[in-house]
């Protein structure tokens, strides 16, 4: 009797998992482990072990979230958003300053959490929720309110300051508004307005942020300062060639020329040791992940599900694009990790939460019909 019930239990859980997404994510994580191992070899090899634990935890979170129906998720959305927003205000007041940024808040002095990370998922959820609630009466007012919901938390994240996260949160929110059907006129208008306020944004930027933007255009202008990261990572990528230097044989990696090689710059490790073959495999895996997400979105049954799935897919894309673009000297240096590959638990949990939501949307489709 009993084994049958357990079997049934596992069967019900498995029913809410998407095999295609699992396959893609497992591939990505494997690539990630290979790279983290190399980036930590031989001095910090314990990182490899803790990354395995991070992955297992994140994987469990994904399975858990996949069980929650989109309907329930929708009800959670306002709570999630409000909690995140309050925490952002709390960070602004009592946050811990690390490396010149106030990003973390210490809860009971035990765990440090980064509320801006919550916003990466809470933002598309609240906006999808809001558009879903006003599905039949989409007016300009709806878009204005959604704009406010988007802007407020971003202001606090920018104040920390955290350019990378605000970019991701902004992109996630904007994609919801875009998919909800914001008229092209307004989009164009915003683009023009955005260009117009660029000089003011430049004024408000921190020196290090400005330097990063400037060195993007000419990394060699500051070879030992802000340009050093970009120069060394492009050398790593370029010297990798077609087939790469071989696992654990990247000279740029192992002679410590690549900064932050296990986190933000891990793509340079991959490209140096596995060459353009490795780069193509990674780009392909990301593309598959995004396409699968968009497919789930296009077949989702409710507006909330559609918008959320599409937005999460866009977050994955922005993550990957901004990171690889930065490491290869295509975009300015913005502190964004490479999804599923970079070492670190927080980003991984957020990403797998997103994958779990995608699975929930995909697998609850027929069940909630």
């Amino acid at each position, binding site marked *: 009797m009993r084994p049958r019930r357990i079997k049934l239990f596992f069967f019900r859980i498995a029913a809410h998992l998407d095999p295609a997404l699992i396959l893609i994510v497992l591939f990505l994580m494997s690539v990630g482990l290979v790279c983290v191992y190399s980036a930590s070899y031989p001095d910090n090899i314990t990182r490899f072990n803790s990354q395995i634990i991070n992955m297992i935890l994140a994987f469990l979170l994904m399975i858990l979230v996949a069980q929650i129906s989109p309907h329930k998720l929708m009800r959670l959305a306002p709570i999630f958003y409000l909690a995140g927003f309050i925490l952002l205000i709390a960070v602004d007041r009592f946050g811990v300053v690390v490396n010149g940024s106030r990003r973390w808040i210490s809860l009971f002095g035990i765990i440090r959490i980064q509320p801006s990370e919550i916003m990466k998922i809470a933002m598309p959820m609240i906006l999808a929720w809001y558009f879903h609630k006003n599905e*039949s009466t989409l007016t300009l007012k709806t878009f204005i309110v959604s704009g406010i919901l988007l802007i407020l938390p971003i202001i606090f994240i920018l104040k920390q300051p955290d350019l990378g996260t605000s970019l991701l949160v902004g992109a996630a929110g904007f*994609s919801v508004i*875009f*998919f909800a*059907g914001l008229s092209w006129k307004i989009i164009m208008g915003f683009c023009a307005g955005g260009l117009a306020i660029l000089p003011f944004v430049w004024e408000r930027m921190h020196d290090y942020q400005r330097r990063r933007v400037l060195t993007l255009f000419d990394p060699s202008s500051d070879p030992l300062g802000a340009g050093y990261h970009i120069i*060394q990572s*492009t*050398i*790593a*990528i*370029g*010297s*990798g*060639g*077609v087939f790469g230097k071989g696992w654990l044989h990247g*000279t*740029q990696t*192992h*002679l*410590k*020329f690549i900064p932050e090689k296990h986190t933000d710059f891990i793509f340079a490790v991959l*490209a140096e040791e596995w*060459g*353009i073959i490795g*780069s*193509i495999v990674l*780009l392909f895996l*990301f*593309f598959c992940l*995004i*396409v699968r997400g*968009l497919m789930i*979105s*296009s077949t989702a049954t409710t*507006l909330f599900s*559609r918008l959320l799935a*599409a937005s999460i897919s*866009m977050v994955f*894309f922005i993550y990957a*694009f901004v990171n*690889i*673009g930065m490491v*290869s*000297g*295509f975009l300015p240096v913005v502190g964004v990790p490479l999804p599923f590959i970079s070492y670190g638990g927080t980003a991984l949990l957020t990403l797998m939460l997103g994958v779990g939501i995608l699975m929930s949307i995909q697998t609850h489709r027929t069940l909630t019909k």
Partner: protein
Amino acid sequence: MNDFHHKQRELERFRRRLLLALAFIFSLFCALFSKLFYLQVLRHDHYTTLAESNRISLIPIIPNRGNILDRNGVILARNYSAFTLEITPSQIENIDKTIAALSEIIKIEPKDRRRFNRLLQESRNFDSIPIRTQLSDEEVASFSARRYRFPGVDIKARLFREYPEGNAAAHVIGYIGRINQKDEEWIRAEYQESNYKGTEHIGKIGVEQFYEFELHGTTGYAQLEIDANGRAVQILSSTSAVPGNNLKLTLDMGLQKVAESAFIDRRGALVALDPRNGAILAMVSAPTFDPNLFVDGIRSDDWEELNNNIDKPMLNRAIYSAYPPGSTFKPMMAMAALTEKKRTPQQTIYDPGYFIFGNHRFLDDKPGGHGIVDMMTSIVVSCNTYYYQLAADMGIDLIARFMGGLGLGKRTGIDIPGESDGILPSPEWKEKRFKKPEQQKWYAGETISVGIGQGYNAYTPLQMAHAYANILNYGKVFRPHLVDSINNPSTNETRTLEYPITRQIALDPKHVDFIKKAMAGVNKQGTGARAFANAPYESGGKTGTAQVFSLRGQKYVSGRLRERLRDHAWFIAFAPLENPTIVAAILVENSGFGAQYAAPIARRIFDYYLAGKAPEGALVPVEPEEETLEGEAEKHNSGENPHAPSPN
């Protein structure tokens, strides 16, 4: 229905936008791919080069400098390995703190700190820089025990230059010192920059400088893999250094030391060479200095001492200081007279004790004169009047031409730097030397003093030895030299340097033999007789006295002034009489008569060199005798001569 229709339209728009997003994503991925393609495929070679130059550092391996030996294999300069305490700044957070902690274990003097700071500025951050050199065994042990406390600090074995003979022949051997800007220009001019990467020292004077590129060797290279902090990870490849060549000098260190000790505390110079080939057997410049002081960077107080010393120990008097030859000029004048057919040996003159030229009376120093004097007597008794007359008969142009032919008044081309030309007076020389027209004119009276080796005449001891060697060789001229052969320690091949006859002076062998006989007379009955009494070999010689007529350029020191106004003593000697194997020019500054101080030095070195007799006790000056006192000092009874030297 309417609602459904509306929813349908919404869904279509949503899917349109999804497709649009997909296209956007795809195109940006394509952009990323093209960037990666550009980096990894198109520019791969470029970035590979960058990555390689990032990780590979060429470290020069400095070759061992060649040794310098004397003709019998006595080591004059060598390298020894000593422990140094070295700091690699890139591996240390706070250099000052580290040094402070180190100084509790090992004595670090302010001098060490200064040198370290200087080296720190000159070197790259990941070079290892010595803070202390020549650690004792106790210091090595005491640091090794506490080594774990000092990451980035190491004990290394380095090679140091050492001159085991100390201050003996220091001017000849020279010394090495740190490469300065002038040396760098020299290295560049010789296209040796790549070979000197990593080399810190270079020859400064003497053989060390002249044969720098023989002694240095070829620098090797190690390819090191370094990390972003400049730390060496592994050696990729290496080309070993080729050690520098060893030099065997012509110098005889035994002879050199006998010669040096004979100077006691007097200033002066000595050049002894083998007339048969120009090999320098001994070269003294007294006082001397200890080249070992320079090896590790000279201490400022030592430098002050050497530099400000009134006796100028750093000056190589043997090749740089030019002195009037005095009566040592007379045998050469006699040679000139015979060669130019102005006199025969038998021709006599009457010496009343003076020579009248124009309205001047040039005095012989023997009151009443020598009476009837032939050429032989003129040399043996050093008769001034004979040469006053001879000079007047020959004229300055002929004298200058002949003496120039002997090699006087120009550099001999010896293989150490720092030689001076000396002064061979002539109307052309005077015209070049002086600015004012009245000074440029040559006065016939000046020729008369030139005839006895005074006046403007000034030659280095080396030139004098060289000129006499040329005469003794019957006119065959060899370049005076210090290096006999060069040994390559890698192949153990020895290359003996060739010193062929550079030119032939037209001299009649009969005349040469006559001059030799006359000079032998000096050592038998003349001014050299007392110094050479009972010598087990036959020798020739000639004393001379160089007038000191100016203290220009010397600092006024009241107590010593009088001493420094005394005349310089010369002695030229050679032996054996038949086929001489050694000729020596000796100058003792401010010692008065040549016979008194200079001649005994010649006796000592000849005894050692020819009879193997080591000198016993300190040199005792020969007491001057009434009869053998020289008469060469030009005594003027009037101050009207334009060249007239004045002791004031």
